[in-house]
């Protein structure tokens, strides 16, 4: 069955109205939710709008993982690089829980998760232990680069544990 020209025009008009209606609802929704991200997937763009950042400190630190591989080798990974940068926020939660002082199911689950992230990054699950440590550098904002990455002022061990099976 083929459409007549009039049918096609009517159909196009209906499509236009539906598209306008959907767009109108999206725009109304965006205006309604404003800054809130609570109503995902309808969110306006509250991008850095209320930030207040202090001048960077005199030192900066980063968490590293030293992974002992099954073949005897050792790999060192910057924790923040385990996942894509914009999602790196999830890493700190996992590391904090995995290095908690008290033995709990949450700590054991976080260690498993950390091992999973490492295995996805390295493409292998053949590693025995994970050492978590922090490197600290001094910051000199008058220089480019402000941090001499090759010269950390100290390296602090945080925790070391066997890979949970």
């Amino acid at each position, binding site marked *: 069955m083929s459409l007549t020209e009039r049918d096609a025009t009517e159909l196009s008009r209906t499509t236009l109205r539906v598209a306008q209606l959907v767009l109108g609802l999206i725009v109304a929704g965006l205006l309604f939710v404003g800054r809130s991200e609570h109503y995902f*997937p309808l969110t306006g763009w509250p991008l850095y709008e209320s930030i207040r950042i202090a001048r960077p400190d005199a030192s900066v630190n980063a968490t590293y993982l030293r992974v002992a591989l099954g073949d005897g080798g050792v790999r060192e990974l910057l924790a923040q690089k385990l996942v894509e940068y914009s999602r790196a926020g*999830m890493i700190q939660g996992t590391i904090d829980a995995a290095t908690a002082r008290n033995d709990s199911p949450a700590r054991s689950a976080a260690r498993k998760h950390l091992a999973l992230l490492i295995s996805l990054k390295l493409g292998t699950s053949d590693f025995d232990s994970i050492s978590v440590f922090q490197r600290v550098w001094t910051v000199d904002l008058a220089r480019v680069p402000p941090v001499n990455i090759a010269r950390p002022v100290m390296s602090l061990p945080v925790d070391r544990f066997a890979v949970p099976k």
Partner: protein
Amino acid sequence: MSTLLARFDEWWTRPWPNAAGRFGLYRIVFALSYLWHVSEFDLRALFGAPPGPEYSLPFLQLLPTSPSMWFLQGVDVLLVLSLLLLAAGIRVPVSTALVLVLGLIREALLSEYGVENGNLMPVVFIPLLAFVGSGWGHSYSLDAWRAQRRGETPVSSTNDSWRYALAMRSVLILLAVLFPMAGLFKVTGDGTWLRYDDVLPMLLLRRSVDSVVMGWWANPLGPWLWAHASIGYWMQIGVVAFELSFVLLLAGAAARRILFAAVLVFHAVSALWVMVSFGGMLAAYALFVDWESLWQPVRGRALVDMLRRPLLALGPDRCLAMVCIVAVVVAGTWHAGTRHAFTLGGLINWRTIWFVVAPVGLGGILLSFWRDLERHRFAARESRRAAIADRVQL
């Protein structure tokens, strides 16, 4: 009131050059760029993760609280499969709906660890508007080829009907709403951008330090910013004014081109020095590229013809079967390593993509301005010649 509505309808129903072809080709660009986006994050990384800061999002309550590995892997694989079918133009309305639903589930799961506002454009708004507006499967698709074989009249890729421009116009309105909203939020309510004069310099300095720690480049303007932090007030006003100016997207093609050129530079600088990507927005900007005009000079080339001939010999049904097999293989091996092909082994990431897109996009926009200028000059020359000829005749 009726005049206003008539004007509103006139804006929506104005022809858009090459609308059918560019929207059809855009579908392919959209699907491929989405595949790149999906390849950036392996959803399996969420398995067993501790709850994120946004765990109470109402939308997340619709999804499993601790998704199994099978669920996470399944979402990624099915989304990749749907995107490949969409790129090839197979059952376009169904594949669009699948891309919308699966993409939304994926983005919601990730949003537990922070909502990425820019991603909502390709994940929710564009597929939804394309689904409602339809027509992006009417050209450059296996669906269209099969319909043609059944005797249906094919849609010309140079068809400029407004029907194929509904999604473009809708996204234009969305950008004209979202960007100014971002600007307004910065200066009203809790907004800090006019209250303090060092918001942007401190952010840039902080990100310069972070960047070096991540093994990337430092901001070469760091020492200058450190010494002249008060300049930040003017930089902040500049960013806010730039975001507010996006209402001008609705003012015409020339304003649109200038704003898109500026936004490409803005994103590239943000990716380089603020470590903010907004890579999802590429899908929105790509809607305004005339892919049809870019494709026309290429389609007649011997190499393209050589590649096309075997597909034409196979016919649409066999091609469909072949594409389905390839799609299943790619989706099935996605986590085994195929996904790395879409980032060229990690070379094209959230940051580097802007260093490719920004110069190419800027070049294209400048070229289009130059062509317009040439066209105007030619028209002026012709009208002068005609005037002289008229005078000579008199």
